[in-house]
Each structure stands twice: as structure tokens, then as C-alpha cells.
């Protein structure tokens, strides 16, 4: 168990180092000068020089990388060039939108996918199974931002149950949750479709195992066999996918936040991109990648807890 955790932790650290190098290289090393990219064609030499000093561009690239990583490790993400505030502050503000949105969507997707997947597996080959599998095929094929637009069309424009976008803040938690509902549903649908399919096939595989036959032979009903024995063992592949989905949810949230005009991390990145604020783009991207890699690590740890075979190693 300890050895397993140690290798996972080592690979976590290594991934983070490589990720930071790649992001830094993509943004700052090749090609051209970040300062002139940020200021555009009309910048005077003085403003360029001032920005170069501010960004530390005069130092070597290696020094700059170390300063960037060192800063992030101590919570200093640099100062946004357009907002003139520390990026950490901007991120903290936006986190209160993006994180609840991702968790909301993940919860919805899991709540939908588990019963649907179990139902399909329990009725394998039946009408219900075929209908569910057809529905999930459709769910996977739907781009979430388009689904979001359809939701707006139906629930905001036609039925007027929800507002079409915007975020009222957490002063009124109910209102906040309401304004996150359509975005969360839009994010959750494709994820739930994938998860339901994984749940189904994992469950079908475990249902074919000998110990399920034994459980049935000793008198458990089909339902009891599924709930007591099969479900727990089918959870391993399902956990992997939930972990992977967090990555998709974060990326999806970037786009969905733009559909619903939510002031989250995704919008922050896009504002950074359109305003050519590389400090914001660089640090927020690193943060997102960090979150994804961390979740992958946590899923690996969760495996060890769920699967005693891994624990012994």
C-alpha cells in the first residue's frame, strides 16, 4: 500500500513539473516576445520596456520559470496586466462559481448514471436496456454547449423557469444554485451518458463471475446479488471514469461558462486570451491542469481503498 502510494505520489510530482514546463514553454518560449504580443503593434518602446521589466523578461528564461513556479508554490500567481490585481485574487473570486458548478454537474451526472446503468445491466438485452443504450449514444454525441443552448431555448425563453445566464452571487444561495442549474445539467448530460455505459458494462462483467452464481445459488435474489456483491466490484472502472470526467467537466465548464455568462475560471481564461493577458492565461491554465492531475492522483488513492488487492501490494 505504502509503496503504491509512494509511486503514485512520485508520478503526481513528475506530472506537475512536466505540465508546468510545457505550459511555460507554450506561452513564453516560442516564438516572439510576450511583451509585444500583449501590447500589440502600437506599443511604444518605453511601455514595452516597462512591461518587459514588470514581467521579468530581461532575466533568463530559466530564471523566469523558476520565479513563476516558486511564486505559485507560495500562492503568488503574478499580477494581472489588465486588471492590475493579483491573479490569485481573481482566481479565488471565480473559484466560487466554477468549483460549485463542477461539483453540481458531477453530482447530477453520478445520480443519473448509477440507477440508469444498473437498470440497463439488470435488464440486459431487454427493451429497457436497448432504449437506455440508444439514449446514451445520443447523449454522448450531443456537444454540451449546444445542449446548453437548447436548454436556454426551452427553459429560459419558452417556459421562462430559469434565467438565460448570469450569476447572482452567493448572497442568496437558492438563487445561486438556480442560476447554476441549467449549466450543470448541460455539463452533466454527456458525462452521465458515458458513466451509465461504463456502469452497465462493468456490472455485466461482474454479474458473469462465479461468486455471483454462488450468491444466487445460496438463495439471494437477483436484486440482492446485484446490490450486495456486484455493485461494489463494478465500482473500480466507474471510479476511474468519474476521475477522468472531472477533467472533462473542467474543460467543459470553460465553454459552458461562456454560454451562460457565468463569471468563472473559464471566462477568466477567455478574457485573458482576448485581452492578451498572458499572466492570467498562464497561471489559470496551470491551476486547472494541477486540479486535473490532483484528481487523477486522488482516484488512484481511492482505488487502493476500494480494492484490497492493490492495498496489499
Amino acid at each position, binding site marked *: 500500500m505504502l509503496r503504491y502510494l509512494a509511486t503514485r505520489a512520485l508520478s503526481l510530482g*513528475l506530472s506537475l513539473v512536466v505540465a508546468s514546463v510545457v505550459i511555460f514553454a*507554450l506561452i513564453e518560449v516560442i516564438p516572439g516576445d510576450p511583451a509585444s504580443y500583449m501590447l500589440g503593434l502600437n506599443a511604444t518602446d518605453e511601455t514595452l520596456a516597462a512591461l518587459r521589466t514588470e514581467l521579468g523578461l530581461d532575466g533568463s528564461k530559466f530564471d523566469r520559470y523558476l520565479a513563476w513556479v516558486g511564486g505559485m508554490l507560495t500562492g503568488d500567481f503574478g499580477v494581472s496586466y489588465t486588471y492590475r490585481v493579483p491573479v490569485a485574487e481573481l482566481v479565488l473570486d471565480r473559484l466560487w462559481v466554477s468549483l460549485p458548478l463542477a461539483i453540481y454537474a458531477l453530482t447530477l451526472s453520478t445520480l443519473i448514471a448509477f440507477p440508469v446503468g444498473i437498470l440497463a445491466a439488470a435488464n440486459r438485452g431487454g427493451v429497457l436496456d436497448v432504449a437506455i443504450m440508444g439514449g446514451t449514444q445520443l447523449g454522448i454525441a450531443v456537444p454540451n454547449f449546444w445542449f446548453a*443552448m437548447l436548454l436556454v431555448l426551452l427553459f429560459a*425563453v419558452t417556459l421562462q423557469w430559469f434565467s438565460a445566464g448570469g450569476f447572482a452571487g452567493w448572497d442568496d444561495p437558492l438563487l445561486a444554485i438556480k442560476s447554476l442549474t441549467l449549466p450543470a445539467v448541460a455539463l452533466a448530460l454527456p458525462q452521465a451518458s458515458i458513466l451509465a455505459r461504463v456502469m452497465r458494462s462493468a456490472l455485466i462483467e461482474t454479474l458473469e463471475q462465479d461468486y455471483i452464481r454462488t450468491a444466487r445459488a445460496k438463495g439471494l435474489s437477483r436484486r440482492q446479488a446485484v446490490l450486495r456483491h456486484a455493485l461494489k466490484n463494478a465500482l473500480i472502472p466507474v471510479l476511474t471514469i468519474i476521475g477522468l470526467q472531472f477533467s472533462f467537466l*473542467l*474543460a467543459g465548464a470553460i*465553454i459552458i461558462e461562456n454560454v451562460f455568462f457565468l463569471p468563472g475560471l473559464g471566462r477568466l481564461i477567455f478574457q485573458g486570451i482576448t485581452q492578451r493577458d498572458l499572466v492570467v492565461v498562464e497561471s489559470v*491554465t496551470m491551476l486547472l491542469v494541477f486540479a486535473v492531475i490532483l484528481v487523477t492522483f486522488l482516484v488512484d488513492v481511492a482505488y487502493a481503498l476500494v480494492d484490497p488487492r492493490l492495498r496489499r501490494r
Partner: protein
Amino acid sequence: MRRLPPALLIGAALSAAFLAIAALSLVWTPHSVTGVSISERLQPPSAQYVLGTDQLGRDLASMLMVGAQTSIAVALIAVGIGIALGVPLGLAAAATRGSLLDEIIMRGNDLIFAFPSLVIAILITARYGPSATNAILAIGIFNIPVFARVARGGALPLWTLDYILAARTAGKGRVRISVEHILPNILNLLIVQATIQFSLGILAEAALSYVGLGAQPPVPSWGRMLAEAQTMIYSHPMLAILPGLAIVLMVLGLNLMGDGLRDALDPRLRRRRA
């Protein structure tokens, strides 16, 4: 002859239809997609404009046809990049199983896998300028580890078989064995994976061009058509519904085809069914 699975037939028919539409759009569209005529803007469907016109008076049907071409071109080339680089890497890793080379290739793969692909794609296209080429590169990079993994996974069990041993005894080198004996036998796996990555590529291209980081105007793309229609969703919902429908049908077709191919090509599944 065995009966083909219905999913495969439906999927292949849908995919073929979109390919045909895209190919046709290379030589003919009902109207020009670059010709802007404000007097003809937002027309309802008519004999002249089968699906009506958009906010700039362009024929929606023609836009959708050329949009198919953009989507397919981007996704197809991105899959090509994945195969061209990923498959040799996977084969090399399998041929040198357990060696340093194998270790480096597979750990490199894990690293790329750990990255949220869309975030990095956004980063690349944002920093190097939005264009179809950069979208292709951004999507293609993340196809490399997928194909490397599939190729390695398919090749490993083959290396333990007798006929490979015979080939080695006959003096064939690892490269030659990989190309002559391993590759033809993992082709099934690669075709199925290519179909899946193709459909993911269509979705990724749509997402990138929706946020303005894909093909640039005046080249029509489904994603940007959706973005432009979003402000008019109240008054002209069809402009937002049709491009989305095109994406869904194309992706659905490819996914059904991929699933069907996997069932049809996997001898294990075939035996179980029989």
C-alpha cells in the same frame, strides 16, 4: 455471410452521407457561402433557399455543407497525426517491452493523458493564433498517446505467439516483424479507435470553433455557426438548432460505426455471440 450488426449499418450510412455531402461541397453548393447579401438575410425556408438564410443572407444549407467539409478535414487530419506518430511509438514500445524506450514512451503517454486536452488546445490556439491548422495540431497531439496505447496493447500479446518466434528464428529484425506481422494483426483495433477519435475530433473542432479558436471567417464551421446563432436564438432558433443537429448526427454515426466495427471485428465477441 454473417449478418452485420444494425448499429454498424446505421452508423456507416450516416457517416457516408456526411462524407458525401462534404465531398460534394468541394465542387458544388446551392449558393455561395462567401456571398453576403443583406437584403436576403434571415429568410425562411423557400424553394430558392431550402433551409433559409442566416443573418448575413448566406444560404444555410450551403453553409452546413461546407461546415461538414471543415469538421471532417480537421478531425481526419488530427486522426492522421495520431496514427502517424502514435502507432510507430506503440509498436516500438511493444517490440522493446520492459526496456528504457518502452518506459519512456509509456510514461510520456501517461503525462499527455493527464492533461485536460481542451484546455491545452485552447491555450495553443490562443497563443499561436486561432486557425484551422492550429486546431488540427491541438487536437492531433492528444490523439498520439491514444494510438500509441492501443498499438502497444494490441501488439504485446502477439509478440508471445509462435509465428513471431518463427519469424525471429528466420532472422527477421524487430522493425520488420512489427511492420510485416504485428501491424496487419492490430489493424482492426486501430480502425475502431480511429473511428472513435474521429468522432471526438468532430466534437473538439466544434467546441474550438464555437469559442472562436477554430477555422476563421469566411470559412464556415458548425461550431462558429452556433456561436453566431446564439444571439438570435430568441427570434430565429432554427439557426442554432440545425448546425447542432448536424454535429450530433455526424458524431452519432461515427460512434455507432465504431461500436459496430468493434463487435464485427472482435473475434472474441463473435464467438461468444455465435
